């Protein structure tokens, strides 16, 4: 079961992302990418300088992808931008800004590459992310109502994940007792 838990946090691709994604914002020590031509919309992100106010950008804008971007697009964008903003390759004098941008890009990737986190993020963007600027005090009731509003998002994505796992369980070489009985029952 632990392999599926990890699947939430690690990229599921088998290609050349050789470093892990720590929960902290420390940049990784070594990076290696397979270079690929950047798609058109990404080039604007690449060309953006760090002087563009990052606070105004959403994760999608930061990565330079549309909000309907697929996981592959997200990964590609991330790779390109990480390569660009990695502190080791930053122009002199801009190391600090580049590092900050790198961290932001990494956080954007972490959120958007996880389907359930992405769903939550999308929901908050749609509702204006007013929490960031909430000046009013939330009453306990408000909090509870907000909590309940979040619940539906959570379980909806959990149900999708369950479906995905079901398909995976069918194909996988699952040797649990239950899996063996299911195979017997289905005559496979």
């Amino acid at each position, binding site marked *: *079961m*632990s392999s599926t*838990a990890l699947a*939430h946090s690690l990229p599921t691709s088998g290609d050349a992302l050789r470093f892990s994604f720590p*929960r902290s914002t420390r940049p990784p020590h070594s990076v290696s990418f397979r270079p690929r031509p950047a798609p058109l919309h990404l080039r604007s992100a690449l060309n953006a300088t760090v002087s563009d106010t*990052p*606070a*105004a*950008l*959403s*994760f999608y804008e*930061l990565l330079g992808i549309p909000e309907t971007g697929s996981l592959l697009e997200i990964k590609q964008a991330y790779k390109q931008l990480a390569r660009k903003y990695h502190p080791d390759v930053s122009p002199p004098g801009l190391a600090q800004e580049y590092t900050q941008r790198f961290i*932001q890009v990494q*956080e*954007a990737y*972490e*959120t958007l590459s*996880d389907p*359930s*986190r*992405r769903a*939550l*993020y999308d929901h*908050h*963007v749609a509702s204006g*992310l007013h*929490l*960031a*600027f*909430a*000046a009013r005090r*939330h009453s306990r009731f408000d*909090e509870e109502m*907000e*909590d*309940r509003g*979040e*619940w*539906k998002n*959570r*379980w909806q*994505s*959990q*149900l999708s994940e*369950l*479906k995905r*796992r*079901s398909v995976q*369980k*069918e194909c996988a070489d*699952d040797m*649990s*007792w*239950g*899996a063996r*009985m*299911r195979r*017997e*029952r289905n005559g496979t």
Partner: protein
Amino acid sequence: MALNTLSFCGSLRKGVGSDAHSNRLHGVDQQCHFSFKAKRSSSGICASSSKRGEYFSEKPPTPLLDSINYPNHMKNLSLKELQQLADELRSDLIFNVSKTGGHLGSGLGVIELTVALHYVFEAPQDRILWDVGHQSYPHKILTGRRDRMPTLRQTDGLSGFTKRSESDYDCFGAGHSSTTISAGLGMAVGRDLKGRKNHVVAVIGDGAMTAGQAYEAMNNAGYLDSDMIVILNDNKQVSLPTATLDGPSPPVGALSRALSRLQSNRPLRELGEASKGGSMHELAAKHGRGLMSGSGSTLFEELGLYYIGPVDGHNIHDLTTILARVKNTKITGPVLIHVVTEKGKGYPYAERAADKYHGVSKFDPATGKQFKANARTQSYTTCFARALIAEAEADEDVVAIHAAMGGGTGLDLFNHRFPTRCFDVGIAEQHAVTFAAGLACEGIKPFCAIYSSFMQRAYDQVVHDVDLQKLPVRFAMDRAGLVGADGPTHCGAFDVSFMACLPNMVVMAPSDEAELCHMVSTAAAIDDRPCCFRYPRGDGVGVELPPGNKGVPLEVGRGRILVEGERVALLGYGAAVQSCLAAAALLEPHGLRLTVADARFCKPLDRALVRNLARTHDALITVEEGSVGGFGSHVAHFLALDGLLDGNLKWRPLVLPDRYVDHGAPADQLTQVGLTPSCIAATIFNILGSWKSREALEIIFRN
């Protein structure tokens, strides 16, 4: 407050008599103050309510529920109709329990869940299990037993818990908690072995989750990976009641905190407020992190159950959506759906009460007032609590331990007086016993108050951790003997047998409340070995209590003779002594003077007393409200070894029969098992050979 909705649709007239009809119109004219939270007002609510009442005083019509006898009648209902059905089911439950008494709060909390389960699944092929079973009344109503609800918890009536012999829809009998996941897993594995395709759904509460067996089951379920659904019914209620005498209290245990964390988005909110004006995506990045998998869900995930939730347990749409999706997913393995409900939901008095109307006697639905008969005397439970408080005042080493039963054991009183010396461990009897053993090692004097039938769960701990090491733990076993409406699952039939066979245990039983106070004192004084005492459910006989309920330690191993007589001796143990006294009183006017003795101790037995009785009487009858293998057997064992059976002595044991006694009124049960005074008298006549005399028959049948 104005009435929310009042509609006079045709269906109303069908079900309601003309009197009620005119009342209804009258009520409208009067503008009765009726505050009723009608979230989803079902069409056709007839609000014939008393003034100032917060609920109906007459049962509203239930047209939809009337048309449903079994779950398959529900299959074509729309969502709106399901919601209406839930409302009708709720009022049906309240009105039924108001007439019979029983468990209310828990059933109210699972109305929507019950409707959703029966709508989505195909019982009885699909197995639906209810942990403990006290929340299964709505389930019973929907599965063909609605017409028998007036017989609930009565002799020959519906059981207050699930019971396999009662209905095909009750897959597994329950009464004690935390067994459902284990049983459900067994049913799932059995299904797999047999090649069947039905579903298995086990509903268990967050209180029951504090018991170890739930984890044993989940651990195994995760390993076997068989398809099954566990529904965690989380209403933040662990103990009964989840409140002290001083007001509501948080549920005991660390698990409840973890489950609460799962429900809240607090980390996000705190971040949001802390970083006002901070960068948007810094915040956004942080709020995605660590939120989806709260610290609790990983517990279930690590055990191998797929976690879904939290889910609003009173939203039928959400419930049916999720259940249907899970049902239709081909392979799931074990899935845990975390459903959040409110105990007592939908009945304002229950929602507000500290005990959420967990168990009620008959009550008035409109006002919520329970009809409690005024007891002449103190209950044994209260007497015990007061006696223990008195001991604790004198000795600061006395502490009390119970397993989520503060109300039932009376230790709520003890907790009120000594909050730091009362330990509620949650539903964990095994832990309670070993915990007490550990306390005893350090010189503390622990009193474990656990019902006789719940003590069964902790038996190995009693034997291995307490008795074997001769640790001075005191066991106070309430609900010994027959218990009436709760039935065999709560009946304390076996404690004498299983305690008295332990080498180091002192086993005693009081015959009245005053004796109970003395035995609490005796228990506190016994400091070199474990001891236990048992007392029944119900009220005492009304003897004078020692001042301040503080008893005096008895001499261990000494009984007493209450009535001096001849020819026949009745040696009673525990509350049965009262029946013996009553039997003697029955026979006295007819020239038979019986000797009545109170053994007080089963272990060590008062040998001198028994020898004396055996030598000076023709017949010796032992009476106890316990199974075979208990007090009577110990007496017989001694008589045999002492050679007292080698003469002309006639010895007879009166014990509970070798079968489980169904729920019913206590008086009915006693008659059934033959332990009433007249049954004892009948036994005496039998021995004396004079049972055919007219006099004898008169005495027996008149009483």
